[in-house]
């Protein structure tokens, strides 16, 4: 009862406000909008908006009632009957002040770190050199699933970054019109390829889940920092880094897929805050995946000799296998990796 009364009261106040605005606006529309010569702008420290709309009644109280919600709790339920909520404003601030301002730097920071690492450490060579003998590592369908995901990931990554960062990065330099065109194109492409990503994710999971569960041997890899700073680390078909990347892609992929579907079909949720939360989590998950993907690309290409063969040819050099995946080498060949290497 009280809630209804509260709601009716707010609507009445809104009605009064609208009438007052209309009353003020009608003569203004017919007259010159130029202020009188002796007019001055007084800075009373208040937020912009109609002031003194209710005479002696407090404006602050009126706007507080309109705004509603609890500014301290992002996930607080919107009070019934409130006309405005603070979460929209908070969402906008998070998006503008944190996501757009800082998140875009993450991939660049990763690229920078990789460049420094490459300059210091250089590529990880096969210490025993190439043997000329190869081992089959990935089937053709697994390689196709991998490159398919890579292609879709790149399309979504580029279009997504334009959608997210176009206004602050493209607008000021190439103009708002260019940004508008690129954003429109990116949004359409991104929305179209979203479901394709879900398909790619499922395919990738089916093809690579076997061998990607964590094992005790992965602890050694962690303690030796993957051998990136020297020393030999044992691993099976996939090492800890590869496994971590796999699960990041799967779990991060599920996150961006679910949040993406919510944004594509907003009717699925009945509270706007799910949409606001989805945009933030979507951006966060996607940018982290993009940043880590650069590390994956680095190790899979210039960072480690022989690793790209596994995805281009499906085969790897035996010495590469002994050095980086010795337990897998022993499993598939039945030979000892140590004796062979020594």
């Amino acid at each position: 009862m009280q809630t209804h009364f509260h709601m009716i009261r707010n609507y009445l106040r809104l009605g009064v406000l609208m009438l007052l605005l209309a009353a003020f606006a009608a003569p203004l529309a017919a007259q010159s909008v130029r202020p009188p010569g002796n007019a001055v702008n007084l800075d009373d420290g208040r937020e912009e908006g109609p002031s003194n709309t209710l005479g002696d009644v407090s404006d602050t109280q009126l706007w507080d009632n309109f705004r509603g919600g609890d500014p301290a709790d992002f996930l607080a339920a919107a009070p019934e009957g409130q006309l405005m909520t603070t979460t929209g404003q908070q969402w906008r601030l998070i998006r503008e002040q944190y996501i757009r301002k800082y998140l875009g730097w993450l991939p660049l920071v990763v690229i920078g770190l990789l460049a420094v690492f490459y300059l210091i450490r250089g590529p990880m060579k096969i210490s025993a050199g190439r043997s000329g003998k190869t081992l089959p590592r990935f089937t053709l369908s697994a390689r196709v699933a991998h490159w398919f995901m890579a292609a879709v990931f790149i399309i979504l990554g580029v279009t997504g970054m334009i959608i997210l960062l176009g206004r602050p990065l493209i607008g000021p330099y190439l103009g708002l019109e260019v940004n508008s065109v690129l954003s429109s194109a990116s949004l359409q492409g991104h929305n179209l390829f979203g479901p394709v990503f879900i398909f790619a994710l499922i395919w990738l999971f089916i093809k690579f889940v076997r061998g990607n569960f964590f094992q005790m041997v992965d602890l050694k890899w962690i303690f030796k920092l993957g051998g990136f700073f020297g020393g030999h680390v044992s691993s099976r078909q996939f090492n800890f880094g590869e496994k971590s990347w796999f699960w990041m892609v799967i779990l991060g992929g599920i996150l961006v897929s679910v949040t993406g579907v919510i944004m594509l079909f907003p009717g699925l949720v009945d509270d706007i805050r799910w949409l606001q939360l989805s945009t933030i989590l979507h951006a966060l998950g996607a940018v982290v995946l993009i940043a880590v993907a650069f590390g994956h690309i680095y190790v899979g290409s210039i960072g480690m000799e022989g690793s790209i063969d596994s995805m281009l040819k499906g085969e790897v050099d035996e010495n590469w296998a002994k050095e980086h995946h010795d337990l897998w080498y022993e499993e598939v060949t039945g030979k000892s990796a140590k004796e062979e290497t020594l």
Partner: protein
Amino acid sequence: MSFLDLVEGPMFYIAATIFVAAGLWRLIGIIRIGRKPDISPAKGSATGGFIKGNLRHFFPRGIFARRTMVHILGGYGFHIGLFVLVFFGAYHIEFLDQRLLGFSWPALPRWGFLLAAEIAFIGLIVLWVRRISDPVMRLISDKDDHIGSWLTFLVMLSGAFAMEQAHDSLRATHMLLVNIWLIYFPFSRLMHAFTVVLSRGNSGATYGRKGMNP
């Protein structure tokens, strides 16, 4: 005349004319080569083999089906998806009606158009990444294969980008790529869209005349 008017008007008509004329030139040229006279007594029907050869190759042989599943699904997905989105997309029907044919037919709803586009994209990307992932396929692929794949992809992608219809520049980019694709088509392996009937038929007729299953 705006750039959009140019690519949707004169340039489109020139590209379409080249597509039809050069395509016919190639097809008629292939047919005119004819077949070497076969003096051996026929043990079966060459015509029946021609038809059978075309139809039977729509289905993979049992022993290869599993091994070539990705290729088969990718191929069907791409070709059927592309056909559906080109000829049943509302934008395309409207364009063909206004610019070329003067009549229209029922279009797919938007969701159907998007679904067809997604299936076509999946198929095309799968086919191309298979091309680069398989050492043998990589070896036998030349520039023409890659240009054909990429040009088709760019035509489709630019079409996807222009779907909002909010900017003429995006539509013009799509139409420019369509025109380039139409001009490139008859001089490339993209012609397989038409020559496939002749090549399958030729093999089928040869086997059919010998009384063998194509």
